[in-house]
């Protein structure tokens, strides 16, 4: 049991890493990865929602009638998203302002509903938490990776927390502004998918 639990957790980190392998939830991936900080913040918020919605849906999986299951999942997911939104407003207001509309939009993120439908509705609560944690961390890592590439090239900095850059390319570095604009997100994501597929081919 312990072994398969680890498997459910680690699959989210590589084999089913959301934006690259499942290619789900691309809207926030493209929109918020202007900096590492935004990427990590969005990732953690999504992870929180994933863990709790997976847990609750898994606990209620035998009670929820199959005909109204999607409605029930959406109610559960929306509740946790609103909790995240309130908590972010209360404790990380600046990050909340930067992420803006993308926090409430986690409700319609395919990853969360996808995990509810594909995993939590068929598995026990402990496995569902492992699945949510794995997929959520995978999502966070992907956002952080894409965010760091875009921020490094587009702005010449790396910012992890509170707007303070932990790394700076130096005064001679000319920022490649294209990377922090919307088209840069597509190019960055495309190239990363490309690299992922190259590695996966072996």
């Amino acid at each position: 049991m312990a072994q398969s639990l680890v498997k459910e957790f680690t699959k989210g980190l590589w084999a089913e890493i959301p934006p690259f392998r499942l290619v789900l939830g691309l809207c926030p991936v493209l929109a918020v990865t202007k900096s590492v900080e935004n990427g990590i913040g969005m990732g953690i918020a999504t992870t929180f929602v994933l863990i709790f919605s997976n847990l609750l849906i898994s606990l209620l999986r035998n009670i929820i009638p199959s005909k109204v299951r999607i409605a029930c999942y959406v109610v559960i997911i929306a509740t946790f998203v609103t909790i995240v939104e309130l908590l972010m407003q209360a404790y990380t207001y600046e990050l909340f302002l930067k992420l803006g509309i993308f926090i409430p939009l986690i409700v319609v993120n395919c990853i969360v509903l996808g995990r509810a439908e594909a995993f939590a509705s068929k598995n026990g609560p402990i496995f569902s938490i492992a699945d949510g944690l794995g997929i959520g961390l995978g999502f966070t890592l992907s956002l952080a990776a894409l965010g760091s590439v875009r921020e490094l090239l587009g702005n010449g900095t790396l910012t992890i927390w509170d707007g303070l850059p932990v790394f700076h390319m130096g005064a001679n570095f000319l920022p490649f502004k294209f990377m922090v604009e919307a088209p840069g997100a597509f190019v960055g994501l495309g190239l990363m998918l490309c690299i992922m597929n190259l590695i996966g081919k072996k």
Partner: protein
Amino acid sequence: MREMINMIVVLTVLTAFSGGLLAVVERGTANKIEDQVLKFQKAPAIKAIFPEATNNPLAERFTVQDTEGDKLQVFPGIMADGSKAVAFETKGTGFGGPIGLMVGINLKTDKIIKARVTTHSETPGIGTRAKTDLSFVNQFSGKGVHENLALKGDNGEIDAMSGATVTSRGVSIAAIQAEKLYLKLKPEIVKHMK
């Protein structure tokens, strides 16, 4: 029939439980969120309205109440030349929900000093110009509290932002609301600031 009742019961219990949970979280975070809004939204707006205040408008804020029970949080400002002014926030409905507008009014001349947008949930790049592009809200500067602050399309004097009429109207409604509240509560405010 049994199946239908089952569905109704599950959905009802689930939504009721969610509602209850959210109410608890909302209540638990309300004070904290108010502090954050004060720090990150109202404070910069007040700083912009009273750049040279000799007092601390945030620390000296007070609440006034009229006979009808309308409450208003007021930020007093004392100008470099000693004249007194107040700033307070009103709400109008924009495209994505309520828009907060912080309005500063000079108590002596009854004229608007400046207005600034605070909290909002408008469309990025379109409605958000109300906050980022100051040329729209600067139209309120210098207007008297008896002037018509409606949009030109609504027979007023304010130019709407092109492409963002609903947002512009929301801001204008907040400004008109501010005029009304000011006229109604001025005696109370003056009494408080003596």
